[in-house]
Structure formats: C-alpha cells, structure tokens
C-alpha cells in the first residue's frame, strides 16, 4: 500500500474526532488515582487523633497551605507545558508561592518562644515515615498525571515529567500532612522537600521516556 502526503492530508481532514482538552483528561486521571492514594493513607497512616485541636495551630494549617499551593502551581504549569511552544518563562514564579509560604512560616516560628530547640523541631519524630509515605502515595498520582499529560504535546518531556512529580508530591503531601504530628515549618522544609525532590526526580526520569510524542 502507498500513501503519499496528499492522501495523508485528505485522510487527516476526514478525521473530525474531537479530542478532549488536556486539563479535562488530567482532572479525570487525578480523580481516578486519588482514591488509590487515599486507600494507602487510611490503611497505613490515618488522620492524627488530635486533629481537632491541631487545627487551631496555625503551623498545622500552614502545611496544607504549602502543599496545596505546590499542587496547584504544578497543575497550572504542567497544563501550560503540555503546549508544544510553551516555555517556563513567566511561569516559574508560581513555585515561589509555596516556597514563600514556607519561608514566612519559618520566620514567624523563629519569632515565637519555643518549647523545643530548633534542631529537635527540624528532626521531628516522623521523618522516616514522611520520606516513605509521601513518595509512596505520590506514585499512583504521578502515573495518572503522566498518562494524562501524554495527551498533550510537551516538547520538554523531562521538565514536564518533573512538574508532574511536583504535582503528585503536592497532593500526596497534603494527605500526609493530616497524619503527621510534626508541624514545625523547619520539619516541613526539610523532610517534605526531600520527599518531593525524590518524586520530582522520578517524574523527570519517567517523563523523558513516556512524554515524548
């Protein structure tokens, strides 16, 4: 069988299937994967028992502000990067929001009298759980995000994969934050960041393979 370019063009023009926007597909994929991560959360971790009192601690609430800001920024940037002509210019600052919230948290904690020394707050009690639970709960979300982003046309697949990693780590960290009793921003900036960096690296590696089009 032969197909010259004119024939191909005619064939393409005959195919009027409408594709769904990448944002819609990403939303569906994340909604499908979130229950898997939540199942892991509730079977292995669960919400901390003193959550009602914890909610009155602004540093407990700050964890959610940071992780949700990270997840939201990463969703916006990954949708932007699913367009082939997109670059990071003008978009990277979005990640200054979660980073800035953390810095603000650290400085205000510094200004308050503390019962525990700084290093004790930083090391905390859950660092190991934090570093394994966030990546573990991220993986279903990361897989879903990558599948959805394949629907896009990212011309920088490793970068797009890394952002998908940030996105999934942001959501997983939001779940984890409700379990963890370490509320110090020093703990968050250390261990959450290490866990997030790990997922981001996995995302970049996977993205450079599966996000090519």
């Amino acid at each position, binding site marked *: *069988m032969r*197909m010259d370019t004119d*024939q191909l*063009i005619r064939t*393409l023009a005959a*195919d009027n299937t409408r594709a769904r926007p990448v944002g819609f597909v990403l939303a569906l994929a994340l909604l499908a994967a979130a229950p898997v991560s939540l199942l892991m959360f509730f079977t292995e971790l669960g919400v901390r028992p003193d959550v009602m009192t914890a909610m009155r601690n602004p540093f407990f609430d700050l964890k959610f502000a940071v992780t949700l800001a990270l997840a939201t920024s990463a969703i916006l940037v990954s949708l932007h990067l699913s*367009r082939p002509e997109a670059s990071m210019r003008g978009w990277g600052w979005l990640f200054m929001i979660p980073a800035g919230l953390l810095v603000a948290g650290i400085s205000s904690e510094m200004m308050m009298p503390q019962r525990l020394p700084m290093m004790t707050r930083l090391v905390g009690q859950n660092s190991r759980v934090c570093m394994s639970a966030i990546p573990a709960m991220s993986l279903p979300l990361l897989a879903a995000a990558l599948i959805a982003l394949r629907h*896009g046309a990212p*011309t920088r697949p490793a970068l797009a994969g890394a952002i998908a990693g940030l996105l999934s780590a942001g959501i997983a960290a939001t779940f984890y934050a409700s379990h963890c009793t370490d509320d110090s921003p020093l703990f968050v900036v250390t261990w959450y960041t290490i866990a997030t960096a790990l997922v981001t690296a996995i995302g970049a590696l996977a993205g450079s393979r599966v996000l090519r089009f």
Partner: protein
Amino acid sequence: MREREGEWTGLMRSAISGDGAAYHRLLKAIAPVLRAAARRGLARAGQPVDQAEDIVQDILLAVHLKRHTWDANAPFAPWLFAIARNKLIDALRRRGRRVFVNIDDFAETLPGEAAAETVSASEVAAQLESLPARQRAVLQSIAVDSASIKDTAAKYSMSEGAVRVALHRGLASLTARLREQ
C-alpha cells in the same frame, strides 16, 4: 510571511470549529513549508534529503493528533513550528545524529515542491501494513481510494461512527508505531 501565518491562524480557527475544508486547505498550505524545512534540516545533518517526505508526514500526523493543544487565541505558526522542530529533531536522532535544529529553519523557508515522484513507499505507508485489519481497511479506503466516510461505512457495513473511530485509532496507532520504530 506575516500574512501567510495570519492566514494559517484563521484557517486553524475555522478547522477547530469543525470546518473540514479549511482544515484541508491549511494542511495543504503548511506541507510545502514543512517539506522545505525538513530538507534543510536533513541537509545540514548530512542526511539524504529524499527522506524529507517521511518527516513531513510525521509532522502532519502530530499536528493532527495534537491539535487540541493549540490555543485558539494564540498564533498558529509558533505552535506548528514547535511541533515540527520536535519531530525533525526526533527523526534526525533516530537516524543517529545529534543535531541542533534552528527554529529559523521553519520561519524563513520558502515552500518546497513535493518530490515529483515518491519512488519508495513512505514510512507511514510501511507502518500501515502492520495495523489491525479494520483500521487498515478504513485508512486504505479513505486515503488511497478517496472514499468518503459514508461510502467507507457502506462498503464495510460499519456505522459511520465506527468508521470515524477506526480512522482516528488507525492514525493514532500509526503515529505510535512511527515513534517506536
């Protein structure tokens, strides 16, 4: 150049809102530009330029399957050239060359004429052979025999919807196979 690109954007807007004739015209208009750029890229990489048509077809397939990522408020040419550049780099890499493709390859070229006669069957045509029977039959009917969707449906006693699905899936799996080869 500006005028040409403005026209493309207009055609693509009509295409996205369902104007098949505008879409056909747009693809016909961009093909020579892509061809010239592909030839230039191949020549610069020291590759035979007669492979340009494979790259053109690869780009056209990607344009088609990724057209939902184009923002109708943005100009069409930067989007097109980003896809074309990506596909050209990809094609040259598959041929074992590390190359730098200049975006200006696309922006500044004059349209290239189609090769007078494609002697060898293209990569797309070769991959066509390996598609599932139904997708292959539908593609053959529409591409080679120039049949309409309606006629194709009648010929294979399929619904028009099923023909559309087979056509779309066939184009998608063609692209997947080209990428994997």
